């Protein structure tokens, strides 16, 4: 193998100085990259959720585990990072006179917008809040996730309120969920002292709520598809009711950091710690599912044709060429703002050395999930003679090789 890097533009791709660009000089905007990476990570997350479902077949058990983890994990962030709560309050403009945990609405609203889950706040008060989303890139993963995101919001709200004067506590419910097939995601939060409802378990945070008649449902024709920071009528600025403003630059860190797997994998870690699952069981299930999901991605010729167009692949690159997979990978890794180097890029092999920590996003199992996913993709995007595997990774790096390989046990 030559390890040579064929002429490609720009050679410096991945050094962090360029926008997202394919090896064949096809550029995509930050806007498109943000959308792409958010959807991509959640496709992989959807596969990981299927592994979770195989490992823990009971819906309630899964939901409980995810809700517990989400609440505790977010609480940990607030409680263990010195100054985080104060910084959060400052950034989101929680005013000093705001009592109680309804300020959580400000956290959820800004987070939604960063994650491109656009919509609108319909109500924001001490005893009731309502937020409606028109878009959710996490909507293909499963309703267990929808439930657990409600609990992460609840945790943020509860923790934020500890810094504040005593006041009413509100309970966050996701009364509609795009993940459940609803037109919108809708969070309605109510104070139970003002709006009593029967008690429920933590995972049952899907309603019903007492103020269903106050819901403001936005009709299909009035829905939006972009966050405020990408909309002209908003002057390309996200704003909340307390005069916090930010532009699209705030979105990028979030779209690369937060996705469905960041709720699922930590839950699986909990179950491993508790002895309910073993790490090997979890790895095996994720391997099987991610490989299958990857194989299913490019089963159709039109999918391959679309990819070639998207990457700007020249006609000189045939269908039997690993650079197709390499170019595809680079677009994602760049969109993820994950540092990497190109060690080889030619007709016989592509080798990438990727920053493992950046790819893992604090979840070591995420790296293997990607590798298994990409392995499966290679089989259908190129052909079964081709493979993708990890080989000779330096410390802290993931060294990926794409080449032809015979494996009698694959």
């Amino acid at each position: 193998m030559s390890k040579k890097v064929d002429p490609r533009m720009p050679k410096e791709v991945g050094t962090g100085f360029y926008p997202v660009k394919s090896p064949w000089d096809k550029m995509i905007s930050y806007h498109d990259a943000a959308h792409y990476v958010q959807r991509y990570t959640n496709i992989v997350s959807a596969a990981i959720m299927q592994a979770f479902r195989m490992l823990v077949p009971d819906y309630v058990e899964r939901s409980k585990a995810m809700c517990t983890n989400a609440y505790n994990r977010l609480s940990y962030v607030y409680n263990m990072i010195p100054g985080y709560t104060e910084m959060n309050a400052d950034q989101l403009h929680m005013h000093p006179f705001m009592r109680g945990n309804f300020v959580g609405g400000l956290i959820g609203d800004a987070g939604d917008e960063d994650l491109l889950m656009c919509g609108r706040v319909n109500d924001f008060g001490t005893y009731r809040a309502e937020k409606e989303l028109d878009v959710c890139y996490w909507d293909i993963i499963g309703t267990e996730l929808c439930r657990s995101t409600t609990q992460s919001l609840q945790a943020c709200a509860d923790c934020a309120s500890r810094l504040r004067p005593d006041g009413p506590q509100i309970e966050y419910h996701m009364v509609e969920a795009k993940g459940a097939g609803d037109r919108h995601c809708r969070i309605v939060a109510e104070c139970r002292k003002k709006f009593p409802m029967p008690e429920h378990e933590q995972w049952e945070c899907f309603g019903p709520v007492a103020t269903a008649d106050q819901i403001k449902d936005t009709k299909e024709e009035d829905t939006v598809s972009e966050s405020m920071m990408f909309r002209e009528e908003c002057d390309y600025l996200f704003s909340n009711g307390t005069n916090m403003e930010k532009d699209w630059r705030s979105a990028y860190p979030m779209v690369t950091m937060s996705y469905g797997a960041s709720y699922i994998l930590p839950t699986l870690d909990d179950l491993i710690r508790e002895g309910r699952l073993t790490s090997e069981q979890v790895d095996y299930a994720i391997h099987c599912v991610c490989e299958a999901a990857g194989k299913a991605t490019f089963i159709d010729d039109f999918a391959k044709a679309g990819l070639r167009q998207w990457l700007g692949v020249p006609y000189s690159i045939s269908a039997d060429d690993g650079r197709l997979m390499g170019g595809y990978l680079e677009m994602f890794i760049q969109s993820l703002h994950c540092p990497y180097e190109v060690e080889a890029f030619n007709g016989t092999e592509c080798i990438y050395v990727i920053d493992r920590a950046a790819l893992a996003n604090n979840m070591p199992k995420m790296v293997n999930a990607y590798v298994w996913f990409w392995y499966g993709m290679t089989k259908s995007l190129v052909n079964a003679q081709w493979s993708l595997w990890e080989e000779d990774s330096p410390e802290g790096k993931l060294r990926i090789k794409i080449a032809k390989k015979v494996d009698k046990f694959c």
Partner: protein
Amino acid sequence: MYQNVYKYDEMKRSEHMAVRKTVGWYLWTHQIVEVTGGDCVKFLEMMFPKNIGNLAVGRERYTTMLDEKGEIIDDVVVFRMEPEKFWVSTLFRAEMFVWFAAHKGDLDVTWTDVTPQWEMYAVQGPKSLEMVNSLAASPVDSQKFFEIKENEISGVSVYINRAGFTGEKLGYEIYFPKAEAPEMEKKLRAAAEALGGKEVTEFQVMAWTLPTEAGFYYMRDLRHTNPFEVGLENGINWEKDFIGKEALMKVRDEGPAREVVGFTVEEADVHIKGRHMGNEGEFVYKDGEYVGRCMKIVYSYVNEINNGTIIAAKGALKAGDKVLMHGHEAVITGTRFI
């Protein structure tokens, strides 16, 4: 569908009307930036378009803070606590610190966030004077509007400021040392109840329904506007230098492009987006033509009608005009509703 979140809510109604009919009290702590130093007057004169140096000790002034484009960054109240010590009451402290730092230069001025030392309670309504007098060691009858004075409540040193964000003729703001707040709340509660008043607990009442009836702005309303567009140009000292002056003079000479008008919507249960919730604001159409955006829409418990404000093209709307917002008819009014 779209049941009005204000109209049928008896809790909000009773809190709002306590302020209008008797007395309402509530936690209303703002961020307090204390500005000191030999050049503090010079510095504040540059930061704010209204006069600061001519404030007497114990007096205060409402003013905007502008950027170089003449757009409002914040609206604040500046108190002169001592000859060279000012308080700036804001809800925009983090940004203000950055802004101040960017313009300090070589001036002898420092600023500190003293918010953690204080808790402020608003006491508002026709019986607020009676309520404050029932608590304070020295009667406050002679205290002027926008005057802050030291006083004492149950042996605790406090500041009492005659001011408010409700439009009530009588209203006070009491600054307690933070540690005393829990005990003081009990005293405030008892004093209010003795007069038939109550605590206002709903954010929407203190920030939106009460101020909107009175034609006041909550800071979000003002973002990306200039003082001429929102009617806050009075009192600007054109003789001094201040940030944003050049741009604002151009607006003054050429006239503002937009203006704020009020509106009411008779239909109770409507779905109209106001920018006060953090969005683009509902588009406003007159005779099918786009004329502006909805700044906010809340409910007037005094007038029993939805009310709010629109930022519209200058001259496009006049009182009595009918406009459409999300298909709902609104009637244009002035910006004060009571």
